[in-house]
C-alpha cells in the first residue's frame, strides 16, 4: 500500500489508529500489538500477496536463528553464536541476492563469460533491502550479546511496523523495541498525534505536489535523452534531483508522521542534505540510517580508520560500493556509489582542499551530487554517458520550450485551455513560467527550513493551520493520479 493513496489515508490509517488505541484499553498489550502486526501485513501484501510470504519467511528465519542463539548463550559457547550470526547474515544476504541481484548476476555472466543462461525475470519484493538490513543488524547485535531475545510478537512488530516497512528508515531494535514496552506510548496523546499528523501532511504534500509534478518533466525527458540539448539536459538532472529529494524527504516525513500518530518516534533519515558542505556531510544528512548501518556493519568491521590511511580509503570505497549495489542491481548504481566513494576518499586525503567561502562548498557539493544522481537515474551506463555528453556538448537547440510543454496539470489546465483558444502566442511563455515557478518553489524548499521547524514556528497559528489543511486537501485531491515511491525499489 502507498502512503499517498486514498485507501491508506481514508481507510487504513484511521483504522490502524482506532484499533491500536482502542485495544490499548485492555490490560494485556498483546492484542494491540497483534492488531498492528496484522495491519502491517495487510499494508505490505496489499498489491501483491506473494510478497507477504517472502516477508513472513524472512521473519521466521531470523527469529529462529535468534532463538538458536539464545540456546547457545544458555549453554555458553561463544563460537556457536558467531557461526549462527554468520549463517543468519548469509541467509539474509542470500535472500537479497536471489531477489535483487540474481538476474543482474546472470546477465553479467552471459556478457563477460559469453554464456547463454536464461532465467525468468525475478520480481523484486517491495522494501526487501530495508527489512533485510534491519534484520541483519538485529542478528549481529544478538550475536554480540547486546540484545535480548524478544517475544515473537515484539519481533514481528519491530520488523513489520508499517510506517518503516517498505522504504525505511532502517530502524534498530534498540530504537523501536523499548518504545513498544513504554507504558505511556500505549495511550493516545494529542502531542504525538498533532506532531505526527502535521509531519505526515507536509510529507504528503512534498511527494504528491512537488515530486510527482517534477516527475512529469523527468520521466518524459529521461526517455528522450538523445533529443536533449545542453540547457535542457542540465535542467532535467536538477529536476530529477528535486524529484528524488521531495520523494524521499516526503516519504521519510510521512513514515515518521504515521509512526508519530501511533505514539512511536522513528529515527531521522533526512536532514536538509543540500545544506551539506561536503560529500561526507551529505551522507550524514541523506538516508542517515543507511549510512549508519553501513558505518556500523561494514566500515567498522573492515577496520574503519584504525588500520592506516590506505586501508581507510579502501574501506570507504567498499562502503560506497555496497551502498551503490544496495540501491539497485545495475552498473549505474555501482558507478554512482564509487563516485561518492572517490569523493569521500578525496575529502579524507585532502581535508583542506575546500573553498573559504562555505556557500561555495555547498554549491560544489550540490552540483557534484546532482551530477552523480543523473547516472543513478539512467537506465544504463551508455545512456548516462550520452546524457553527460549532452550536458557538456549538447549545444542549444531550443529543446527547453518543448520540455516545458509537458507541464499540463489540473492546476493550470483552465488557463492553458483559455490561452490555447484566445492567445495561442502566450502558451509557450506560460509553460516556461510554470517551469520557473515549479523550479523556484523546489529550490526554496530544498534550501529552506526542515518540516518540523516550520511546524514548530508557524504550524500552530491560524494561517499555519489553514496552510496545512489546504496542503492536505490539495494532496488528497491529487491522489487520483497515484504514483510509486522511487525508494521502494531499493
Amino acid at each position: 500500500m502507498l502512503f499517498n493513496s486514498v485507501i491508506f489515508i481514508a481507510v487504513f490509517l484511521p483504522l490502524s489508529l482506532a484499533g491500536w488505541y482502542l485495544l490499548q484499553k485492555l490490560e494485556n498489550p498483546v492484542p494491540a500489538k497483534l492488531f498492528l502486526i496484522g495491519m502491517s501485513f495487510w499494508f505490505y501484501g496489499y498489491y501483491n500477496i506473494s510478497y507477504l510470504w517472502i516477508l513472513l519467511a524472512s521473519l521466521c528465519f531470523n527469529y529462529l536463528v535468534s532463538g538458536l542463539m539464545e540456546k547457545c548463550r544458555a549453554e555458553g559457547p561463544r563460537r556457536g553464536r558467531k557461526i549462527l550470526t554468520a549463517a543468519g547474515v548469509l541467509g539474509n544476504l542470500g535472500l537479497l541476492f536471489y531477489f535483487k541481484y540474481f538476474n543482474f548476476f546472470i546477465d553479467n555472466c552471459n556478457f563477460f563469460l559469453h554464456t547463454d543462461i536464461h532465467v525468468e525475470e525475478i520480481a523484486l519484493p517491495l522494501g526487501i533491502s530495508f527489512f533485510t538490513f534491519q534484520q541483519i543488524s538485529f542478528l549481529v547485535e544478538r550475536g554480540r550479546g547486546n540484545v535480548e531475545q524478544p517475544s515473537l510478537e515484539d519481533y514481528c512488530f519491530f520488523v513489520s511496523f508499517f510506517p518503516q516497512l517498505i522504504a525505511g528508515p532502517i530502524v534498530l531494535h534498540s530504537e523501536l523495541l523499548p518504545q513498544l514496552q513504554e507504558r505511556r506510548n500505549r495511550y493516545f496523546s494529542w502531542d504525538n498525534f498533532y506532531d505526527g499528523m502535521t509531519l505526515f501532511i507536509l510529507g504528503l504534500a512534498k511527494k504528491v505536489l512537488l515530486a510527482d509534478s517534477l516527475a512529469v518533466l523527468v520521466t518524459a525527458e529521461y526517455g528522450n535523452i538523445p533529443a536533449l540539448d545542453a540547457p535542457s539536459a542540465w535542467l532535467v538532472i536538477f529536476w530529477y534531483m528535486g524529484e528524488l529529494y521531495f520523494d524521499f524527504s516526503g516519504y521519510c516525513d510521512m513514515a515518521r508522521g504515521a509512526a508519530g500518530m501511533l505514539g512511536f518516534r522513528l529515527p531521522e533519515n533526512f536532514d536538509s542534505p543540500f545544506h551539506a558542505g561536503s560529500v561526507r556531510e551529505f551522507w550524514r544528512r541523506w538516508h542517515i540510517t543507511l549510512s549508519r548501518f553501513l558505518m556500523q556493519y561494514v566500515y567498522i568491521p573492515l577496520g574503519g580508520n584504525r588500520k592506516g590511511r590506505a586501508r581507510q580509503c579502501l574501506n570507504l570505497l567498499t562502503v560506497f560500493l555496497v551502498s551503490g549495489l544496495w540501491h539497485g542491481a545495475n552498473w549505474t548504481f555501482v558507478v554512482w556509489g564509487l563516485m561518492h566513494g572517490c569523493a569521500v576518499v578525496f575529502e579524507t586525503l585532502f581535508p583542506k582542499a575546500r573553498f573559504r567561502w562555505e556557500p561555495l562548498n555547498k554549491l560544489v557539493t550540490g552540483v557534484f551530487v546532482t551530477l552523480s544522481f543523473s547516472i543513478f537515474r539512467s537506465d544504463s551506463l551508455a545512456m548516462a554517458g550520452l546524457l553527460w555528453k549532452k550536458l557538456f556538448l549538447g549545444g542549444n537547440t531550443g529543446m527547453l520550450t518543448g520540455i516545458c510543454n509537458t507541464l499540463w496539470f489540473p492546476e493550470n489546465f483552465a488557463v492553458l485551455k483559455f490561452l490555447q483558444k484566445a492567445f495561442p502566442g502566450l502558451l509557450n511563455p506560460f509553460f516556461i513560467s510554470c517551469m520557473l515557478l515549479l523550479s523556484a518553489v523546489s529550490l526554496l524548499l530544498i534550501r529552506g527550513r526542515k518540516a518540523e521547524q516550520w511546524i514548530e514556528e508557524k504550524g500552530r497559528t491560524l494561517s499555519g493551520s489553514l496552510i496545512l489543511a489546504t496542503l492536505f486537501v490539495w494532496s488528497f485531491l491529487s491522489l487520483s493520479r497515484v504514483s510509486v515511491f522511487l525508494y521502494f525499489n531499493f
Partner: protein
Amino acid sequence: MESMLKKRVGIRLLALILLELALAAALVMLFDPFYQYHGPLPGMKAVLNDRDNQMAGTIRNFQYDSLLVGSSVAENFDSAYLDETYGCRSLKVIRASGSTADLLYYINMAQEKHQIKDIFWCLDLFALDAPAEVTLRGGDTPLYLHTDTILDDLPYLFNKEILLEKIPYMLAYSHEGINVDGDAYNWSRGKEFSAQKAMSAYDRANIVVNEEIEQKDFSDKKELISQNIRLLTEYIAANPQIRYRFLIPPYSLLWWDCAYVNGELEERFYILEEVLPALLSFENVEVYYFQNEEEIMCDLDHYMDMIHYSPEVNDLMLRRMAAGENRVTAEGIDGLIAYMRRLAERICTEEIFRYYPVQD
C-alpha cells in the same frame, strides 16, 4: 499546557480539513460532470464529452424513452433529429468497441428506471466476433461509475481533475454549446476527413492485381459469433414491446480490402449471413443496410480511417432510415449478400487501386 495547545490546534486543523474536503465534495456533487447524482443543473445544458465516464451516470439520471446505441461510429449521429422524426426522447449509449455484451449491459441498466420504446442500434459487424462477455466492470473503468451507492465515490468526489478540469470543461462547453443536445459525444470537431488522412491509417500490403488470397479458416470463431447474435436475439425476444431499428454502417473500401488481404472476407460475409436473418425473424425489428452505398464507401474523402466516417454520412443514414430507404427485408437478404459479394470483389480488385496504385 503544550499538550492542551496541541489538542486545540489539532482539533482546529482536523476541522479545517473536514471543511475543505466537504467543500470540494459539495462542488463535485453540485456540478456533477459525470452525472452520477443528477441531470444537468437548471439553466445548463447537459455536456456529454467523456463517453466512458459519463455513460453510466446519464443512463441512471437522465430522462429519456429511447436509446441510440453503437460504437464510436455512432457518436456523430444527431440524436435530436431522431427525437423530432420519431417523437421520442433519445439518449446515446456508446461503447467504443461496439461490444454487444457491453451495450446490452448499458441497455439493461437503462431499463431499470426507464420505459424504453425505441432502440436505434448502429450495429458493427466486427463487434459480433468480439468476446461475448461484459468488460465494463473491470480493467481501468472505475467501479463507482456503475454502482448506486455513494460509499465508493471517494475517487470522484475528492479528485482535482474533476474539480479543475472536468467542471471547467463542462461550464465552458455548456456556454459554447459544444457536445450538447443531439451533438452528445460528437468527436468530429477539428477532425480531418480526407483520402489522405484515411490512407495514412491503412498500410496496404503490396498485393498484385488478381492475386489470389487464401481465405482463413474461421470455424473457431463461429461459436463466438453465434453467442453474440444469441445475446441480441434473446434480448429482442425478451423485450417485444420495444421497436428496434438496426443500422449497419458503411465502412470504407479500406475495411473491405483489409478483410480481403487478411483472408477474413468470408468471415465478414458469414457474420452478415447469420445476423440478418436472425434479426429479421422478429416483427418489431427493422434493418437498414448502408454497406452497399458505393458512393460513400469508395470515396475516401468521407473518412478519417478505415471505418470512421464524417458526420454528413451519419446524417444521410438517419434521413434514409426516416424515409424508409436502405431497408432490408427477409426476402431481400440473399440478393443483398450476392450484391455485396460482387461489390467486395470489385473493391478489392479494382477500386482499391485508385488509391493504392499497383507497384511494379
